[in-house]
């Protein structure tokens, strides 16, 4: 059995859905072929069972344990063994075909989204991208799963047709034409059923949403009331789903009944016709038994054919969605494109010609603005991060060289931008921190200390070797931010750009981080977007940005004490952050100047939850 995943999933054609399916099929042609052989084997063996049984009824049964009976029984056993072997080998092959195709598709999508940057989210919502792996790739697999059975069924159908026609032309034709007719009638009844099922699925989807919504807001519900109203709403929707279910039951039970009625009547007709033939001596009683067996058996290839058509149409729809993901262009920033492993010797000022920003080589500079978004935008532009910044590659120069001439992979290596809402990923903490895989233990410890993140080691079972949960959920908001900061520091880039790195931590911690951060990055170009006096007071230079231009620069103290209009503007921004200039009304409590941490309220719920865990683990750690 071939081990998956593939070392390289290959490059599929992105032209059309059928072309994609054909490309996948070519990749596993051998498996498909072998599977078709077993499919034919199984189907023919299944068809042979009634035949052998019929032969036995004709000769052998009457004479007790005769030689003929033993031979017939051995034949039956042989057919049985062929059936058993073909079934199990066939099943192994069909599963391999299925996972081969679906894993290849998942791998292609999974690999592609790691190269597209945020362009992929502009093309499709996250949920739909995940759905291409969670369901569409499985649908693609199903086509290859069912193929062998379909082919086997077709062959068996033809074989049986010849056997039947050989015994009796009329009966043969009746069976071969009658069964597809029965299948067609059944297919017609399925339509209204599918409609009702869809209605129930939708109602039931709404119910699930309602339940999930209620439970997501449960803390609020329990805190301020309204539980009964919600339980009542849920009950009403639940009863609606039940009513829809009863409607489905009406149609479904009718279909089930039809599935008994139509083949049943067909069978009765075959038996009647066959018995008449047997009476006239045209066929033997054994052949009558064989006909009966065939009429029952032939429903299987019909089912396989219907399934094949259905899964093919589902797969085509799925592939179209997959292709939308795969067609999103790559950024070209992936480290695999880094031709020259050793970056050219660093040094040189970082200059943005549009804003007039000049960051002297080796200095630690803070960017301040009345509009935090503005400085954040400028900061990401410095590293050409995100689809919106790619057009500015000519405006940014590092050591006099425009970034456009460096290539994006090289830019990423030399300029690292850590945004204010960085994401943590599932994995062992040590690996998640050391993303370039080059840090020594010493550097790890130093980065953690600088980000004041040592407490994370206590709260995570296993410390550095502990597992960070999905999106860092097991950590509190503050911990996540500090881990992300340590991670950015560990890349040790020539230029480090940090956007609001301490917005979610308390003042005690922020003061510590500010001091250590400046010490660690001493002599290496660093840009920090912040409005916190605790940080501003530590950096080499502060730059005030207004309307996209640099309007003032100097030290924090210098600007605070200055008398120019720019200095006044600076004081207004910074003092609002520190709020020493209280408005006439008493400033409200509990408000802070921090950035949103996560996309949904569930994240927030987890934040609070993990704060508790954090406290609990601290209590443990102290003992």
């Amino acid at each position, binding site marked *: 059995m071939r081990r998956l995943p593939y070392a390289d999933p290959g490059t599929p054609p992105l032209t059309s859905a059928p072309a994609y399916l054909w490309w996948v099929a070519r990749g596993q042609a051998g498996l498909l072929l072998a599977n078709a052989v077993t499919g034919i084997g199984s189907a023919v063996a299944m068809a042979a069972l009634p035949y052998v049984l019929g032969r036995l009824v004709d000769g052998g049964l009457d004479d007790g344990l005769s030689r003929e009976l033993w031979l017939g029984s051995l034949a039956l056993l042989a057919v049985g063994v062929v059936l058993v072997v073909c079934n199990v080998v066939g099943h192994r092959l069909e599963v391999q075909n299925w996972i081969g195709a679906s894993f290849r598709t998942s791998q292609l999508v999974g690999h592609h989204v790691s190269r597209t940057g945020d362009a992929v989210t502009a093309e499709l919502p996250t949920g739909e991208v995940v759905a291409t792996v969670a369901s569409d790739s499985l649908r693609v697999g199903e086509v290859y799963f069912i193929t062998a059975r379909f082919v086997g069924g077709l062959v068996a159908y033809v074989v049986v047709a010849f056997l039947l026609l050989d015994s009796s032309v009329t009966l043969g034709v009746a069976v071969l034409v009658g069964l597809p007719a029965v299948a067609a009638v059944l297919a017609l009844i399925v339509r209204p059923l599918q409609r009702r099922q869809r209605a129930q699925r939708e109602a*039931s989807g709404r119910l699930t949403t309602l339940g999930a919504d209620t439970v997501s807001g449960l803390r609020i519900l329990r805190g301020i009331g309204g539980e009964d109203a919600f339980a009542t709403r849920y009950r009403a929707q639940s009863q609606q789903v039940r009513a829809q*279910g009863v409607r489905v039951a009406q149609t479904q039970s009718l279909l089930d009944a039809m599935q008994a009625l139509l083949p049943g009547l067909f069978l009765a007709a075959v038996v009647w016709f066959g018995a008449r033939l047997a009476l006239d001596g045209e066929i033997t009683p054994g052949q009558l038994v064989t006909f009966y067996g065939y009429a029952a058996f032939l429903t299987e290839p019909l089912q396989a054919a219907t399934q094949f058509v259905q899964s093919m149409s589902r797969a085509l729809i799925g592939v179209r969605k997959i292709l939308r993901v795969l067609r999103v262009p790559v950024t070209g920033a992936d480290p695999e494109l880094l031709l020259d492993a050793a970056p050219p010797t660093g040094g040189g000022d970082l200059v943005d010609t549009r804003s007039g920003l000049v960051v002297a080589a080796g200095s630690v500079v803070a960017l301040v603005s009345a509009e935090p978004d503005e400085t954040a935008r400028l900061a990401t532009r410095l590293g050409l991060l995100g689809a919106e910044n790619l057009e500015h590659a000519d405006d940014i120069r590092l050591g006099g060289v425009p970034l456009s001439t460096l290539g994006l992979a090289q830019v990423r290596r030399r300029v690292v931008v850590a945004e204010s809402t960085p994401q943590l990923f599932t*994995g062992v903490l040590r690996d998640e921190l050391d993303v370039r895989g080059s840090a020594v233990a010493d550097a790890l410890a130093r980065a953690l200390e600088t980000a004041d993140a040592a407490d994370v080691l206590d709260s995570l079972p296993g410390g550095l070797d502990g597992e960070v949960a999905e999106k860092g959920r097991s950590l509190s908001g503050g911990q996540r931010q500090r881990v992300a900061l340590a991670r950015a520091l560990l890349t040790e880039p020539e230029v480090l750009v940090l956007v609001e790195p301490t917005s979610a931590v308390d003042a005690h911690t922020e003061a510590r981080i500010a001091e250590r951060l400046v010490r660690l990055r001493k002599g290496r170009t660093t840009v920090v977007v912040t409005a916190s006096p605790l940080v501003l007071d530590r950096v080499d230079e502060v730059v005030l940005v207004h309307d996209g231009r640099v309007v003032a620069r100097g030290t924090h103290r210098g600007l605070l004490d200055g008398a120019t209009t720019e200095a006044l503007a600076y004081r207004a921004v910074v003092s609002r952050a520190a709020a020493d200039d209280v408005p006439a009304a008493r400033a409200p409590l509990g408000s802070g100047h921090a950035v*949103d941490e996560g996309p949904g309220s569930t994240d927030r719920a987890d934040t609070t939850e993990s704060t508790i865990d954090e406290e609990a683990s601290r209590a443990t750690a102290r003992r």
Partner: protein
Amino acid sequence: MRLPVADSTALRAHTGLLLRRHRSALGRVLVLHTLAAAAGLAGPWLLGRMVDAVADGTTAGFVDRAVGVLVLAVLTQTVLIRYAQRGAMVLGETVFAELREAFLATVTRLPLSVVERAGTGDLVARTTNDIDRVAHTVRFGVPRVLVTTATITLTLVAAFVISWQVALGLLVGVPLLLATTRWYLRRAAAGYLRESAAYARLNGTITESVEGSRTVDALGLGPRRRERVDADLREAFAAERYTLWLRSVLFPGVDLSFVLPVIGTVVWGAYLVSTGTATVGAVTTIALYALQVMHPIGELIFWLDEIQVGATSLARIIGVDAVQPDRETRADARPRDEHVVAQGVRYAYREGHDVLHGVDLDLRVGERLAVVGPSGAGKSTLGRMLAGIHPPTGGTVAVGDVPLVDLPLEDLRGHVALVTQEHHVFVGTLEQNLRLAKPGADDDELRRALRAVDAEWVEELPEGLATTVGSGGWALSPAQAQQVALARLVLLDPHTLVLDEATSLLDPRAARHLERSLSAVLEGRTVVAIAHRLHTAHDADRVAVVDAGRITEIGPHDELVAAGGDYADLWRSWQRD
């Protein structure tokens, strides 16, 4: 903290209770299915009779009559199946509706402390994934198990009635069938759960890659993300390979145990025919039964498998029933005044690991107290104690001399409320969202509450208060959502508020705008504000510094600064002038 999961005894008891409650419907369905299965046996039986009759030389009249009986049997079976299936499906829907409604009723009544500590992730998973899994089992599984069981039982009974001697030949496959099925079922559920866990992990990885695509790009994490996808696929492959191996044992075992009875019946039947104990027709009938029973047995095994998986989900659903109440409330508890006092409050999330070490705090009515201190010092825990969410492990928190945890939840909400970073807009109209806090409020009252928090945007909504909001409805910005939460507080009107970094997760501009809304809500109430920004502390009447589970300093800002302690150091570094 994890929510409980029911053990197998509780699971059996619960299932038993459910079945007993619906025993008449269940009985009806069983009888109908048994009759339907009986009618389905007519085909092979009549064919056997005809084989004998044709051999003996019979008339066309006999054949016509026999086929007439067959047609009658098919028609009867059709009608029976129709009603049996409908009954079974309606029963499944009813039982399942009961199950999910009871679950949600229990969930919405969970003790406050459990909800706060367990978080909502696990509960959401139970409400969605587990309910869906049980749905599949109950809707499709239960009816199919009834049908297949009835069919199998009846086929065997019929075979024995026709000729018990010949029918003995059927049993040749039973030991093999039982052995392989048992072997398989013992391993299958774990195998399939491992599979779905592996796929869930893969989906999680893709979600992370897409949601964090900017971070992936910024830090050059592409190669790692690809490795991760490959690792998840490797695990999924290993899981698939395991279940494939299970089926590679099961399928031949089951297939063989289907073929053996056919051969067994024929050989054994031939012997019996030769001794005159059985007719060729009887042997034919029973051999056809052996072929016919293959399908239901295969289906039954398939469903046993699914039912095992469904049972693990059911255990998680009914497990919620086992949560014990966290307090015993006294209905007659009447606080004398609005004075909140904490005395010697201790709290431990895990026994022996106190997070709070005996905190005393006397809140002055109408004051604003800021609580500051490093992360993990116990600030949030103290906030929860003051809001009456968790009963303290030691000491008391009382309002007007009545311990908070003695108050029924409905009363407690009118006294103290906890406001966190979390804000949730429920799917529904805006007025529904607001009336949670005060079911009897009229539209004017709702509008006044919204105006109080500066939420003028309500007037611009397409349908005003009746606009549907929440996921799928009109999208409110985070700041607007927070204003809705604040308006709820105005309607709830508690005299004391505990704010746990209530707006700290909003972006700076939204936070500034919200400051005004928040001041309106705080007016005239006692406020405890847990904060990580110092200007909050500066503006408060008093500041409490919490460190390592104790209040180390408390007093007005100016006094603390003058006292020259930790707080003063911090303030100076913040201030720097």
